[in-house]
């Protein structure tokens, strides 16, 4: 279970996160939707300290970190138990697909190379890239790169997987394939927090959806609650705008 309490973050005078609370149970898939600039990506990035929250508490099973005075050990503990899939893939440019996936296993988890390779090959197969293992990122399409990014995250065997707009940078024809991969992982019971602009996907894959606006969660509930029985006007406006596109 991951529990975020009172997450605060400001960039200068810009108060981006205003005491956000979110609890995600083990095996649950939670999607965060909302307009660009509402702070949802920043929120996701405070979980593994890519952005350091000014205040708030992050609890991941038995790891409990107070953001304001977290030390390196706390941050490493969180990073090593979470994995992130980035909007622009963020693959290591100088390593092949296989090496990208093996990196965390051999360097961080100190697994023997043989074992790491076996796991990496297995994960790349899972995302449908067994024939692209020795390609460098620049030799792969956006969709393929993102699937390597997903394999790299899966290989860590994280307690929570964080996905930061995983399809926003993709060409439209690549989106479906990547979403299918994420859907199949979600169905296997991995805990996930997904920031996304894909409304149909969020509705379909999530156990719970949270609508983010002005640095906080305005409304959250089952996909049915959010998309059909919407309560808040702001959520309604946002959905109307998104579906009208």
């Amino acid at each position, binding site marked *: 279970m991951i529990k975020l309490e009172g997450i605060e973050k400001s960039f200068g005078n810009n108060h981006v996160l205003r005491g956000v609370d979110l609890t995600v149970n083990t095996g649950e898939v939670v999607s965060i939707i909302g307009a660009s600039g509402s702070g949802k990506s920043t929120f996701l990035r405070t979980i*593994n*300290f*890519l952005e350091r929250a000014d205040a708030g508490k992050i609890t991941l099973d038995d790891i409990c970190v107070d953001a304001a005075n977290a030390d*390196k050990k706390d941050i*490493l503990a969180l*990073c*090593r138990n*979470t*994995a*992130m899939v*980035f909007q*622009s*893939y*963020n*693959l*290591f*440019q*100088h390593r092949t697909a296989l090496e990208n996936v093996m*990196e*965390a296993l051999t*360097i*961080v988890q100190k697994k023997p190379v043989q074992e790491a390779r076996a796991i990496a090959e297995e994960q790349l197969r899972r995302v449908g890239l067994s024939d692209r*293992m*020795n*390609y*460098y990122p*620049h*030799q792969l399409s956006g969709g393929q790169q993102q699937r390597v990014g997903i394999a*790299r995250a899966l290989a*860590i065997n994280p307690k929570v997987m964080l996905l930061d707009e995983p399809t926003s940078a993709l060409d439209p024809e690549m989106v479906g394939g990547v979403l299918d991969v994420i859907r199949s992982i979600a169905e296997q019971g991995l805990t996930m927090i997904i920031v996304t602009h894909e409304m149909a996907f969020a509705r379909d894959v999530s156990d719970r959806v949270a609508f983010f606006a002005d640095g906080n969660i305005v409304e959250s509930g089952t996909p049915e609650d959010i998309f059909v029985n919407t309560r808040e006007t702001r959520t309604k406006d946002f959905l109307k705008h998104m579906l009208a596109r």
Partner: protein
Amino acid sequence: MENIFKPSAILEGIKGIIPNIPITLEIAVVAAIIGIILGFILALFRVKKLPVLSQLATLYISFMRGTPLLVQIFLSYYGIPVMLNILNYRFGTAFSINKIPNMVFVYVAFSLNEAAYMAEAIRAAILSVDRKDIEAAHSIGMTGGQTMRRVILPQAMIVAIPNLGNSVISLVKSTSLAFTIGVMDMMGRAKVISGSNMRFFEVYIGLALLYWVMCIIIEFVVNKLEKKFNIRERKVVQND
């Protein structure tokens, strides 16, 4: 005509200078190695913005790049004995200031100078590594040291190679200043030969050709290295 310009003296000059090539190479290699190590440390001070150390590194680099190498050689030549004397006076040590080989002053001056230039090349290379790669390293739980070794340096190296190569080429040419404090490198040797056969122009043509060939070879090696490390030129390896 033979009295005005004697082409065969060029060849004789080259033959005479060749035995002293190792001295020149020695200066260049020692200065390049110490320069890279020291330059890397200076670059880290600046990239990590370490308090005090970063400012000191900036000051050091500014001084080394803002004063002539020839002056630095003299500072080393006259300064090191003075400093040893001060040590002897203060702490009762007994360093002999008369037995220091001239090469030591040369090593010190060239290494310290080279470090300043290398530091800037390495710093620029480290800063050129994509922020996204560093975020990915953080997200999979790498420590700062692991990120440096596994993600930043391998990519920075590719960027740094051309600049480091240029720096080494200019270093090889600068070694010709070492003769000013009596080191018998290629330049020193050329001075001796030309002084004795009075064929100054011919001998210096030979000397220039030798430096040129050395720099062409270095350039060739640097180009090869650049190709070798550039992933965009690598082919896909299929394993079955």
